């Protein structure tokens, strides 16, 4: 997901550098800055942030609710009662499938919550477990 934003970012950084070079008369170390900044940001987005985000994702399926915790800078802990879950999906995009990953999405009447980037069999297991637990007692 971070990789998709890479192209416009690279283009922006390269374009900025090129424009600066062409339009002004500054030394090499100055006009190369936008490109360097873009590359650094890229590394941050593609490599560092997803790893940190993965490390900070926690989930627990208790007897009556699902406990999710995520976030590096903004930390959020969400609890979803099993009785409120209407249905559960597993979802995986082309890049995820390549690495054998999937996202579990469960829907309440107020919207969706998800557990991203689980290995495919684990995701399927989570989905089935939540589905089995929510089978009884559903009212809105």
């Amino acid at each position, binding site marked *: 997901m971070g990789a998709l934003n890479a192209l416009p970012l690279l283009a922006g950084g390269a374009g900025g550098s090129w424009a600066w070079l062409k339009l002004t008369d500054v030394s090499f170390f100055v006009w190369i800055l936008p490109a360097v900044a873009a590359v650094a940001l890229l590394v941050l987005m593609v490599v560092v942030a997803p790893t940190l985000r993965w490390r900070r994702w926690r989930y627990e399926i208790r007897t009556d*609710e699902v406990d999710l915790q995520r976030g590096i800078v903004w*930390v959020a*802990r*969400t609890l979803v*009662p*099993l*009785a*409120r879950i209407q249905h559960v999906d597993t979802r995986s995009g082309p890049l995820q499938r390549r690495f054998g990953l999937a996202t579990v999405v469960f829907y309440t*009447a107020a919207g969706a919550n998800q557990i991203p980037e689980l290995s495919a069999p684990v995701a399927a297991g989570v989905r089935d477990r939540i589905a089995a637990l929510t089978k009884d007692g559903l009212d809105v």
Partner: protein
Amino acid sequence: MNSEMGSSGVDQANNSPLRLHPAAMLIGALRTVRRWVGALVIPGGAFLASQGFGIRTILLVVAGFIVVAALAAVWGFLAWRATTYMVSGGAFHLRRGVVQKSERTIPLDHVQSVDTVQGIIQRLFGVVEVRVETAGGGNEPDASLSAVSRDAAGTLRREIEGSRREPVGTEEVAGPDVVRKLTMRDLLVAGATSGQIGVALSLVAVVSQLFDEFFSRAFVERVVSSFAPRSVMAVLLFAVALGLFAWLLSIAGTVLAHAGFTLSRDGDYLYIRRGLLERREATIPLSRIQAVRIVEGALRQPFGLAALRVESAGYGENAGVSTVLFPLLPRREVENFLRAAAPEFAGEPSLERLPLRALRRYVFRAILSASPLVVVVAGVAVFGQYAGLPVPGCGGCGFGTVSLLAFEIPFGVFLAPLLLVPAAFHGWLQFRDAGWTLSGERLFARSRILARITTVAPRRRLQSRSVISSPFQRRLRLATLQARVASGGGGAEVQVVDLGSDAARSLVERLGPGYHVA
């Protein structure tokens, strides 16, 4: 209907398709005419203007109009003939379509309510428009019958709702009890204090745009130059006049929508009747109400008034669209009102306040949101003089400039940061008004953006709860609690910003389904 006929109350086996009332022909024809006239008015007007207003062109336009009306009448008849509805096999069926025929089937279980609306035409003929609303709004279709006699509407309602609740044993003598009715005076006060002036102003803007398009440049310029303000006084007067006009428009809008607002209750169902030209009758099953919001608007709170809204599951197509439960009533009467209308939401427990360390975050946020305005005002003060605006601080207007570091700074720039003072006060007000508690299995949360809103949501209605914290909040041991309830086709939030992190954690636990008060 005989009450001994079993739990459904109505024999559904032998239903045959029913037609709409013939008034539907007229309604359909008028709708078609309106659509066509709307499309043709601009090219038609342009045509008229180019040809001059001679007799021949007027006759041509009239002839064209007659042709359109005749075609619309024929279409109205065909559409009426092609539309049938019936209730059978546990579902509501609607067949319609002249060229493209369609059949819509709605299982009775999915029907949330059967509402009736009366427009001017329906009132003329003594019929109603029936709207079958479904839950899960947006994805599932709704159905509407444009003209149905009152008896047929009553029968239809009984057939649809009879499958889900006990029918009324006797004939409709023991009808719903009126909980509250909006008086004419309160209606006008509601219109005057609704704060919807923004909508009205944008309407005025749209109208002026259209004005621009229709009349020639020279004409517009002549009008503008004769009315245009030439001094600061005139600009102010013009703005005040515009504001007054928009205010009157918003009053009119409120009157149109909420005239005669009556809330009644019959067992587990609330009935709302309202509207001036178009009478609407809506049903809200109590079991669908997820949260009640007591809204004390900025213009209403000083007078001790409030409005009530509900978040209702599946009511309405959009997410987070709340419905008006009652447009205006004194704040101190809200508890009695809710006890009569929706007792699960009644109660005025004392609320826990936010810790003092949250105050600076509230003030900071308020100042931050006011700062763009400050920048704009300062910018106008500095650069306005070049644009020819009558700005305090410009050369010939009597206000001086101040010399600072070899720059001539108009006096007005120093007035701009003064705007931050009311902003900071507003932030303090928001901090003071924030509160929460868990009482009697219900979450109470109060906050203020512009209006002070108290939200009541039963614990069992919460779809999820979250505790969110930014690094700044963590440093101050604060957090934000966010609970979600179902609303419209999606969700709505009940949140408390910047409460103590311990309180947030304990509250989140106590809101859980497994938590029982020992």
